[in-house]
């Protein structure tokens, strides 16, 4: 905790609050019928994305995300206005309105994309890490994977390859307890995902994903190891999501009162706030001000996205190839 400066703490809190506000607002806008397609919300998991990405450099470090990718985008520094436009399918979106929620990306920020395919990211991250190693950039690459993705063959293959090639990769398994509707307590054969690290010849750590500081510390260790050229690390982050698998999911598979209790007792933002105020590192007033600024940022982004035009017809056939 002590290694984080006041500016770092403000930065971390702002990003986490931005993700929360962004996702809570999308939940409402989706309910109002304003957003087309599939939307998977990250609310509740903010400490993971921000705790990891706080260590990363926009220029040289890459991340690949999952279908639940908005939080990772914001944590890696993607523009919130352009993201909102993208999710509304509007002109000026981060991907010109052609990707949407499930395929949102910004290569300029080292964000290789949310991914509509569970387990799609880990092989790509091995490639980004290989490029960093070959070109000598000093960069690392992070694969965010869910508990569902932890059971994909692509993930197993990538963990093996990363060790064999000694790649600067961090596999971050965000175990939120459910792969769609199926509990990880049932679907993950090893129980804890972290146990799989040893099988693939890499160190593993399991951390409390409700605690930003725990994630930050473990990620820091893993990322430093990668930067030293010592190879990949597995990080299992235990957390939960406040919303369903996708918007529209009635969550009948969850226990009665489960989400309410988590919101009350396991909210990473509340926990962060309590820790920094108790230790006197940051005042409540500062965070109240951030909350107000973030609320305005998201209000403005939603208003802007709603007012923005849809992409012109001419965009239908652009960007299929560089040249054809």
């Amino acid at each position: 905790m002590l290694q984080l400066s006041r500016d770092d703490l403000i930065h971390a809190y702002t990003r986490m609050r931005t993700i929360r506000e962004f996702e809570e607002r999308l939940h409402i806008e989706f309910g109002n019928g304003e957003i087309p397609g599939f939307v998977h919300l990250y609310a509740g998991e903010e400490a993971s994305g921000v705790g990891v990405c706080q260590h990363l450099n926009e220029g040289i470090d890459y991340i690949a995300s999952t279908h639940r990718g908005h939080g990772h985008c914001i944590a890696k520094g993607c523009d919130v206005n352009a993201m909102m436009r993208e999710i509304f399918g509007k002109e000026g979106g981060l991907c010109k309105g052609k990707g949407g929620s499930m395929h949102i990306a910004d290569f300029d920020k080292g964000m290789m994309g949310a991914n509509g395919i569970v387990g799609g990211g880990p092989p790509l991250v091995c490639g980004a890490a290989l490029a960093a190693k070959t070109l000598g950039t000093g960069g690392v690459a992070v694969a965010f994977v869910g508990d569902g993705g932890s059971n994909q063959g692509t993930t197993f293959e990538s963990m093996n390859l990363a060790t064999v090639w000694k790649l600067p990769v961090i596999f971050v398994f965000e175990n939120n307890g459910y792969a769609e509707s199926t509990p990880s307590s049932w679907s993950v054969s090893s129980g804890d995902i972290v146990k799989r690290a040893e099988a693939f010849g890499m160190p593993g750590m399991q951390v409390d994903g409700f605690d930003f500081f725990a994630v930050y510390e473990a990620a820091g260790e893993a990322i430093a190891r990668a930067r030293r050229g010592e190879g990949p690390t597995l990080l299992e982050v235990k957390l939960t999501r406040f919303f369903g698998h996708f918007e529209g999911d009635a969550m009948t598979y969850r226990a009665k009162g489960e989400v309410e209790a988590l919101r009350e007792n396991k909210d990473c933002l509340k926990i962060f706030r309590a820790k920094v105020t108790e230790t006197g590192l940051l005042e409540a007033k500062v965070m109240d001000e951030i909350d107000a600024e973030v609320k305005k940022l998201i209000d403005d982004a939603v208003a802007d996205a709603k007012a923005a035009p849809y992409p012109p017809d001419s965009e239908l056939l652009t960007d299929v190839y560089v040249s054809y």
Partner: protein
Amino acid sequence: MARKLSFRGAINEALRQEMERDKTVILMGEDIAGGTNAPGEQDAWGGPLGVTKGLQPIFGPDRVMDTPISESAFIGAAIGAATSGLRPVAELMFVDFMGVCFDQIFNQAAKFRYMFGGKAQTPVVIRCMIGAGFRAAAQHSQCLYPIFTHIPGLKCVVPSSPYEAKGLLAAAIRDNDPVMFFEHKLLYDVEEDVPEDPYTIPMGEANIVREGSDVTIVTLGRMVSLSKDAADLLAKDGIEAEVIDLRTTSPMDIDTVLESVENTGRLVVVDEAHPRCNIATDVSAQVVQNAFGALKAPIKMVTAPHAPVPFSPALEDLYIPSPEKIAAAVREVHAYA
């Protein structure tokens, strides 16, 4: 200066020259060197059929990388590396193995540029072996390039000779889109004159390999030489066939085909792939849509049958289109009143 070089040697030379030209070009694949960390020889194989032999000793194990047998991981890694500064050439070995890594090719590489609004660039080449005639049976003998041709965002190259392979592979490596490069394994020992200096052959430009005014034969890959053999047979009967090598199926140079059909009015399409939704059906549909008025006879297709590739040499020989079958189709189209 040109000298005789095999199809295998031409591919090896293109890889070597492109790696010399551009340090970001790297190779990866199962056994492309072979013997990594083994007690015996390094570069023990140079690929299962020796196509990449000798490259690891020149460029080292950091640029010619053996991989575990994990096609999803290393094809995906090649794609990821392509988006972040390298120009990887990954070898899938047999195209039949696409089933274990297809997601990375068609959902990831092919779609990045479009999905991400033009921001991503994925200059990766995926080499693989295709084709029947090796007695390798159902899971090591397919063509499958029609499946990749179907997918927007991919380019597909099916070279027909050593000269073509060298120039097209160099072009593929320099291209900024993901390229599938299909090498017919029965061509590896074929030799012809190939210039020593590097050169490129642009994608999307078909090659008229034999001129003729009676019937147009459109084909690709190994079927080009079989079609030329058929044309020689037909010439003895006074039928002059024009043979067009498509070279690439995506992009496809349909204009050259249409121009030829406007002249001949008769078309035979020869494709070693299965008959449904293949390159022959694609070419036929485009010709019917765009040059219907020029046609003097129904189009004939000569393809493999709608069946897996059999093992028994007797059956496999029956399976593959032959010069005789091609010549028979041309005669039928030519005789149509």
